[in-house]
């Protein structure tokens, strides 16, 4: 026994490589073939579980398809898919008692396009997987927006029945929120954050790979919901509307669980990476603001996301198991849903915004050639938003019939958030002040973000005031507000980020002219689409209804036509990205003369980021300061020193 213990010490510390991987039959190898049959196998397993327990409990009928779809289709089959793809391979062998292996990096790097379609543990590959798949879901969600606008071009119902219309805008919102904005930020940060803090990878690379592969599952569930109607209660899914939807509503509930699990795992990974893996010299007060932004966002995700998981469990149980969480006839409390939901979903709007603040700070400082104004206050205001964000949820419920004494405190805290947000806006403006501005595409998007976000923020302050909110609740004023903050805010920063790091991620430059056309077309058509919604909203046009009063017809026709231009403008982006990625001019390591660490390595960075962890020697934004450096790479010296070691 003692001998065995002795070896296990070696094994645990990772000196041993473990047994060499056995050559497996092609159907048993981790990959798409195994994913296919394991999906089916796990579905049958889930079916068996449901039938067994229904038989055990004496329920009639024994084979009921509703629980089968939830358990086998939406829970077990995705698990089988992940297991087949290889997401759990390491942990299974660990659980069965095989020696621990430190991450052996065999899953690192992407050498052909196929490497993007497997479980890859390289944070850079995962980042690209994230961004590409979220852009796919963005286009799918955008297509639904086009269909919604087509229907709304005329006052009567034209193309869809009302339930289909409800499903279109519900799935549009769900895809954009859960499958685009949140994971697109996670993807960009996945790529650049470890580079920025001088880490060779994330803290838990295998968990990172798994959290990505949960996303397509959630996205496909939302898309599949059109074949199982029922996701027609908005992305907010309020009961009793949601509990009275057709059965397909569970597709929304389960998609949220998968996407939520993905974001919690990624956030946990970011937090541990930022806390434990910063390069020497990288104190918290020397971290780039993107890292700060993702630090606060990840805290929000870890703390808040379980609340939406809970709220969707409740709705699903009420539907499938006929529980009474929200049934007032059985002492349930329907309004409780809104409290629980918004306790997540208000912090969620900061989850969808803070990483964008980080991107804007990077871009604006770099392209103004000036240190960011008020760096510490920029970081502290992020923390202030985090804390305040948990105290404002009921401002979504002023007209819901909740306790009226909650209104004024929630209004006050809501308006207080304008202070840290205002600090950020004025800091960006002060950074621009007397800077040497370079209006490249990332900068245009960042400036577009600041101006559009101010408009959205102002209507947000209006909505935070109880009397105005009561007047415009559930009108197009809300639709205008949400799109100014999430499209003019989050989406613009996502594009700023994609253009800013495109050379780093792909090693090629994008076409600047097309990028600028994309920006201006989007900016103009975006305002033409959403600004008039303020006007018709104040006049009382209700949202989430397929038909409307004829008096709003002219504005709606104009909005719909503008929205088609807005939709078309993204085609320029898709074309630009695909063509540039294939055949754009090679990108230098540092095309924007940035100071943060990701610009010190080649484009794209080497598989393991650095030969040796960089030494951080100063602040990240000392542009225009003579001789200032943020970090020093000593990879060359390290390679020379390692030479004799390698020859042994």
């Amino acid at each position, binding site marked *: 026994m003692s001998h065995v213990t002795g070896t296990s010490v070696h094994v645990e510390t990772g000196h041993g490589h473990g047994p060499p991987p056995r050559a497996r039959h092609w159907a048993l190898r981790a990959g798409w073939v195994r994913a296919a049959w394991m999906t089916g196998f796990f579905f049958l397993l889930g079916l068996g579980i449901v039938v067994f327990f229904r038989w055990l409990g004496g329920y009639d009928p024994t084979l009921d398809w509703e629980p089968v779809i939830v358990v086998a289709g939406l829970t077990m089959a995705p698990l089988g898919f992940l297991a087949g793809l290889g997401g759990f391979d390491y942990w299974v062998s660990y659980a069965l008692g095989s020696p621990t292996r430190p991450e052996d990096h065999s899953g690192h790097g992407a050498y052909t396009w196929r490497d993007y379609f497997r479980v890859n543990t390289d944070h850079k590959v995962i980042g690209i997987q994230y961004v590409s798949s979220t852009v796919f879901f963005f286009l799918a969600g955008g297509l639904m927006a086009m269909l919604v606008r087509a229907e709304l071009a005329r006052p009567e119902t034209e193309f869809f029945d009302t339930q289909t219309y409800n499903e279109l805008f519900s799935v549009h919102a769900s895809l954009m929120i859960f499958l685009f904005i949140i994971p697109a930020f996670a993807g960009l940060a996945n790529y650049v954050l470890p580079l920025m803090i001088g880490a060779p990878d994330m803290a838990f690379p295998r968990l990172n790979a798994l959290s990505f592969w949960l996303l397509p599952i959630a996205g496909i569930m939302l898309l599949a919901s059109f074949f199982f109607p029922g996701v027609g209660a908005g992305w907010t899914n309020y009961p009793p509307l949601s509990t009275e939807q057709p059965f397909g509503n569970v597709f929304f509930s389960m998609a949220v669980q998968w996407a939520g699990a993905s974001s919690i795992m990624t956030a946990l990974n970011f937090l541990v990476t930022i806390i434990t893996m910063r390069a020497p010299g990288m104190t918290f007060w020397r971290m780039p603001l993107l890292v700060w932004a993702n630090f606060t966002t990840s805290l929000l995700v*870890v703390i808040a996301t379980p609340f939406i998981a809970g709220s969707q469990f409740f709705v699903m149980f009420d539907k499938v*198991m006929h*529980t009474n969480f929200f049934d007032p006839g059985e*002492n349930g409390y329907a309004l409780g849903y809104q409290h629980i939901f918004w306790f997540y979903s208000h912090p969620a709007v900061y989850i969808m915004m803070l990483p964008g603040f980080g991107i804007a700070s990077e871009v604006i400082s770099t392209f103004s050639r000036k240190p960011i104004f008020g760096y510490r206050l920029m970081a502290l205001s992020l923390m202030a938003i985090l804390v305040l964000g948990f105290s404002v949820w009921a401002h979504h419920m002023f007209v819901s019939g909740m306790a009226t004494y909650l209104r004024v405190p929630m209004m006050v805290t809501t308006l207080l958030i304008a202070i840290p947000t205002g600090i950020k806006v004025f800091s960006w403006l002060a950074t621009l002040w007397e800077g040497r501005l370079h209006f490249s595409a990332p900068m245009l998007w960042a400036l577009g973000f600041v101006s559009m976000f101010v408009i959205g923020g102002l209507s947000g302050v209006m909505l935070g005031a109880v009397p105005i909110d009561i007047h415009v609740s559930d009108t197009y004023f809300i639709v205008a507000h949400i799109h100014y903050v999430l499209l003019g805010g989050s989406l613009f920063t996502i594009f700023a980020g994609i253009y800013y790091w495109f050379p780093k991620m792909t090693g090629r430059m994008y076409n600047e002219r097309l990028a600028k056309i994309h920006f201006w077309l989007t900016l103009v058509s975006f305002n033409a689409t959403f600004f008039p919604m303020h006007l018709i909203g104040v006049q009382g046009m209700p949202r989430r209804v397929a038909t409307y009063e004829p008096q709003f017809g002219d504005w709606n026709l104009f909005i719909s036509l503008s929205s088609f231009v807005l939709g078309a403008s993204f085609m320029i982006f898709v074309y630009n990205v695909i063509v540039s990625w294939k055949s754009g001019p090679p990108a230098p390591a540092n095309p924007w003369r940035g100071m943060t660490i990701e610009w010190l390595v080649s484009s794209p960075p080497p598989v393991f980021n650095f030969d*040796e962890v960089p030494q951080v020697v100063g602040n990240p934004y000392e542009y225009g300061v003579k001789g200032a450096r943020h970090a020093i790479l000593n990879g060359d010296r390290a390679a020379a020193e390692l030479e004799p070691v390698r020859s042994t």
Partner: protein
Amino acid sequence: MATHAEAAEHHHGPPVANQSSRVDSRVLGMFLFIASEVMLFGAFFTAYFFVRVVAGSPWPEPPFHLPVFVAGVNTAILVTSSFTIHWALQSIKRDNRAGLQAGLVLTLALGIVFLLTQVREYSRVGFNPGDGAFGTIFYGLTGLHGAHVFVGLTLLTFASIRAFRGHFSAAHHHGVEIPGIYWHFVDVMWIVVYVTIYIL
């Protein structure tokens, strides 16, 4: 650190990551995960609050009764298992493998007894999740907790398999410590559930 030494030796792996915190990354990860789990319980307790306090549902809803005594004994069982897992961890810290194995097996056994008692209680308690919001919340909270006991037991089973196959030592016992932290969390959570559902 040895992982990185090995990586440098072959010079095909990543560079040595700088350790910028004294906290171990795996322990920190588990604590963050537990923070998230606490919030999930928080969502369920919020539903409990709305049903019992705001909507004023009678508790327990007549004519039903809650088996306070049996659940109390069950609580004692789960609390005991926290001590046994602690014993297992302390044993391996002193390189006492027999103590580790005995502690893990005892913990597993106590956890399984707890779950089986819970199942027995479900079949005898006389109401089901559809019986008013009271039944819903009762099954919701105890069921959520039961699912966590199941996850904890699964993790402990992995640790046990590894303990019996000769892994872990005084220097390396994260594979026991981290499931142990989770197990303590499950235990503490049960005390909160027991007090709010059965006693108050």
